[in-house]
């Protein structure tokens, strides 16, 4: 293998790999899947580096590929998505206790933690796609609106509006979920 390739691989892995995994993880909610996805992302970057245009930073380009690969992955596994049941709760406003998929060996506090994550993941996953992307890049990746606007190819006000709407939707979904009397509010 040419040395340039090895150097490019080392450079990408040392400088960008962890961020790629973490971003993918925020979208797919599973570390193993995120790690597998990160390898696809790196290969895609190495294969298409010739198409990369300097009008966006390498970082922006990498985020864009990572988000796209993660969304592809989610689409592919949608049917066997463990959050599907929960997701339909938020979409259909169907009420009911959340079934826990936890292993029996888990402690109560871990169960509680997993439960909270599931509730939040399901609510975030039920957001319209652009709201979800903007929200995750902002709240999980902690990126500035400007960076998000470059990654998503949108204006900064559009990104602000997406994040605002995402928050409005999320608090409504969560409030409905937590309200014992969700039926009465509808």
């Amino acid at each position, binding site marked *: 293998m*040419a040395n340039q*390739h090895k150097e490019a691989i080392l450079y990408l892995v040392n400088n960008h790999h962890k961020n790629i995994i973490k971003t993918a993880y925020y979208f797919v909610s599973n*570390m193993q899947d995120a790690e597998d996805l*990160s390898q696809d992302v790196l*290969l895609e970057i*190495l294969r298409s580096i*010739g198409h990369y245009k300097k009008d966006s930073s390498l970082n922006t380009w990498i985020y864009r590929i990572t988000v796209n690969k993660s969304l592809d992955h989610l689409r592919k596994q949608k049917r066997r998505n463990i959050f599907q049941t929960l997701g339909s709760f938020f979409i259909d406003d169907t009420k009911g206790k959340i079934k826990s998929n936890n292993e029996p060996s888990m402690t109560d506090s871990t169960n509680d933690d997993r439960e909270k994550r599931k509730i939040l993941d399901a609510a975030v996953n039920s957001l319209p796609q652009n709201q979800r992307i903007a929200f995750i890049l902002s709240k999980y990746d902690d990126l500035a609106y400007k960076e998000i606007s470059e990654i998503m190819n949108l204006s900064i006000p559009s990104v602000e509006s997406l994040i605002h709407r995402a928050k409005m939707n999320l608090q409504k979904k*969560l409030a409905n979920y937590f309200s014992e009397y969700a039926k009465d509010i509808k």
Partner: protein
Amino acid sequence: MQKTLNNPGCVFVRDNLFSYQEKKLSGEKNQKFEDHLNTCKRCRELVLNFQSVSSSIDARRADEPNPFIQTRTIQKIESELERGNMPHFTFSKRILQPLMLSTIILTAVVIGLALGKQVDSEFSSNLSRQNGIQVMKSDLYITDFTDEDNAFFDNH
């Protein structure tokens, strides 16, 4: 029940869960929010539940990948690329232009030699036929990194 939940105070709390948590409410609105919490048990529970669930954002952010993943990934990518999936560096303008230039120079040198002329022009003194081939070879490996990324390669 409906009456309670449609109470303007309850609606205000429900509409401002994020703003309250992110401390983005104005002083007056923050006061209104907390005044309502003092009088409404259900909203107090809602706020606690909301904060508890949204704190799992921080929990997720704290999760770290497998520490050995980098080594495994480098191995996997190298083997993937060696199995014939080499990245093809596309012949973009930025690669084609220097490549064509080297070809033209090389051709000029070859023609010059073939005509039996003395090789003493500025061009050919710098660029022997071998050099021309070297230029072509290195041009094939031009990659499109940003300046910051190029700085990395320059140091190696």
